[in-house]
């Protein structure tokens, strides 16, 4: 829905052959362990892996961020991610659903007011490689929790973008617009 507002055509992908003519892909929220399992069951993994390796622009939110990471902490042992972003991500780092929260965030590269970010059983980025640009962090002033000091929640590496939070839940399309620009520029 959010992408449709950005003058691009969005459609769901459930089969490997549906990847062929895409200019970019969004890996949405959900459960990363379930996604990892179903990518194999539905035989989509290798085709998507190949396209990502060849530089397909991608945006991952929450579980999607986990799927794009090089390494996942606190996941399932058999969980596999794409490594399209040189980062280590900690799954459910902010806690279970009772700890899920929303907060105003400053995101690098977005004009205007702070972005209202909704974090649901959200991951954070534990560490990033040299080529990854950090776009947003949270801290205790936002979450009320000292353990969250300087935690990275939005990153970009070339044509790959990821956020711990869910911009599609707020009606603020700026993150989706940023991704649409990345896709157009690629």
């Amino acid at each position, binding site marked *: 829905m959010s992408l449709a507002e950005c003058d691009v055509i969005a459609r769901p992908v459930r089969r490997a052959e549906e990847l062929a003519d895409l200019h970019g892909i969004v890996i949405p929220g959900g*459960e990363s362990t379930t996604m990892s399992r179903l990518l194999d069951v539905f035989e989509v993994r290798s085709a998507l892996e190949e396209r990502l390796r060849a530089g397909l622009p991608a945006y991952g939110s929450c579980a999607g961020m986990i799927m794009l990471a090089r390494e996942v902490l606190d996941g399932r042992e058999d969980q596999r991610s794409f490594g399209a972003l040189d980062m280590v991500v900690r799954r459910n780092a902010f806690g279970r659903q009772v700890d899920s929260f929303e907060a105003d965030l400053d995101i690098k590269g977005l004009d205007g007011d702070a972005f209202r970010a909704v974090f649901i059983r959200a991951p954070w980025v534990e560490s990033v490689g040299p080529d990854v640009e950090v776009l947003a962090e949270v801290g205790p002033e936002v979450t009320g929790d000292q353990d969250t000091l300087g935690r990275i929640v939005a990153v970009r590496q070339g044509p790959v973008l990821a956020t711990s939070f869910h911009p599609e839940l707020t009606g603020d399309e700026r993150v989706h617009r940023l991704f649409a620009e990345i896709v157009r520029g690629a």
Partner: protein
Amino acid sequence: MSTDQNTGTGTGRVKRGMAEMLKGGVIMDVVNAEQAKIAEDAGAVAVMALERVPADIRVEGGVARMSDPDMIDGIIEAVSIPVMAKARIGHFVEAQVLQSLGVDYIDESEVLTPADEANHIDKWPFTVPFVCGATNLGEALRRIGEGAAMIRSKGEAGTGNVVEATRHMRQIRADIRRLTTLDETELYAAAKELRAPVELVQEIAQSGKLPVVLFTAGGIATPADAAMMMQLGAEGVFVGSGIFKSGDPVKRAEAIVKATTFHDDPDVIAKISRGLGEAMVGLNITDLPENQKYAGRGW
């Protein structure tokens, strides 16, 4: 977490958003950690922890209550996907206990024996989100008015018979369609007829959909059942007794997950419907005595 306007836990957006992340998925009833693992391995997006599946509640009778916290803890430990658990209708202390255990969603469920025959739980003060059953739009909106962040059609749990789930899905969708054809003046009378908050009635007349995610439940036993519910407009499926009361739970669980995703592809459904072993034994709704119909619980 602080509770000022800019940041907070348990906001409507956070609660409803959680259900958004389950869309297109299957949530499976499990009664122990071993079943929970099978469900997770099969690709369930969440599990529902309960002491007895509805089919057993029917057979064994008695008062059905919230599960033992030890059992819920065991399931939370065993899986990494979200864990839901059931509280009795109106039993706000069971709900408080489930929240304190850290479950990710509470199902205020007619499958358990109601604890209050006049009032549902006031769900707004809770940080944990609630899913509630509904047989029609009015019921769904009353639950949303009380703070439910997700709705499931009730169906008739523990029967392996999808007919009531079909009735309730069609009813909810038809009620919504009707609202979109009314003019503004008529919406007040519609709210009265539906016994629903007028603000919600106006919102739905405008948007043409529920303000929360709509799943289906109650009687889904086969991949084709799940796919049919999706084609009828469900955004995901709860499967209760249908999996672990069948001959080959692992295979059936995987098949129902696949059917839910590829619900509009009969070739896929045909392929995965083969060799699943025995489905759960079904019950005819018309053979059920009135006091054993769960869908009538709640109001």
